[in-house]
């Protein structure tokens, strides 16, 4: 199995699959073009690592790219450089083979090489298989231990804030 950076159209398909897994497909508004512009120009807003299987293991539809991790660099006012993993996904028929672990390991390596001190990400509380997997890899639940809640201001609320 190969892990490599992703200069092509696969991310949109796997992002849609991940959204369906989380039952929120109607919230996915990005188009192929947005992803290409924002991820693959000179100053990308995100990076993607893709897991690809050899020819003989491809899916019935002929797909060889069977998982991905999308991440970007962030910053902690406490410890400095950090890395944020926004998405981690492996197609169902390729789970349980260490692909997720390998993708995360790659993100960790890249983060450490860039001088990062921590790796953050979010998980849905109803996604028990994922939570179990992450705990087994050595992370902790910041929301449960420190009580941090993720907040967002968008749409009308953002417009109002800009006009106060």
């Amino acid at each position, binding site marked *: 199995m190969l892990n490599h950076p992703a200069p092509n159209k696969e991310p949109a398909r796997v992002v849609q699959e991940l959204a369906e897994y989380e039952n*929120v497909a109607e*919230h*996915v*508004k*990005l188009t192929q073009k*947005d*992803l290409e512009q924002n991820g693959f120009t000179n100053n990308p*807003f995100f990076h993607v690592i893709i897991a690809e299987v050899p020819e003989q293991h491809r899916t019935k539809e002929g797909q060889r790219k069977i998982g991905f991790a999308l991440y*970007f*660099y*962030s*910053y*902690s*006012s*406490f*410890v*400095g*450089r950090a890395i944020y993993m*926004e998405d981690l996904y492996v197609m169902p028929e390729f789970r349980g083979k*260490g692909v997720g672990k*390998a993708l*995360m*390991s790659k993100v*960790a*390596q890249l983060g*450490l090489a860039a001088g*990062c*001190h*921590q*790796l*953050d*990400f*979010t*998980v*849905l*509380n109803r996604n028990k298989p994922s939570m179990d997997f*992450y705990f087994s*890899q*050595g*992370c*902790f*639940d*910041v*929301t449960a231990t*420190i*009580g*941090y*809640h*993720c*907040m*967002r*201001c968008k749409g*009308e*609320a*953002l*417009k*109002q*804030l*800009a006009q*106060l």
Partner: protein
Amino acid sequence: MEYKLRKAEPRDVPDILRLVKELAKYEEMEHQVTLTEKELLEDGFGDTPFYHCIITEIQGEKSSEDPKVVGFAMYYFTYDPWVGKQLYLEEFYVMDEYRGLGIGSGILRHLSNLAMKTRCTGMMFVVAENNEPSVQFYKRRGAEDLSQEEGWRLFRFDKDSLVKMAAPSEE
């Protein structure tokens, strides 16, 4: 009292670290701040900044006095593959004695404007659930609590776990 909101410059780094530590103390986590002035300088004002910072300074009572930095916000741009660019507010703090003067609202207004100008679809941040004043401050302004409403939990690998995970597997 006049205050001025401006982009932080390299000379502001000592004040930025001072305010980071004050906020950490307010959250009872000051022992967790390991960031140094040197790192803040390299990471914020080098070729590829990891963060951006705006500060609020007030003019001293005498015109001969240096202005004093009394508030700041540290932010960077993130990415939500469902809806696009987000502005992530990492730190936002106004010194105790300068609260209630509209400095905080001014900072948020500036950042919201910036978010819209740079085509971000949202502004994101975390708040400690026991920080009631802050939670109410944000909810009053229309922020959604994604942890409560959608069940998102923030997970973290610290440095040691990160090193273990990055190690090549035995297979």
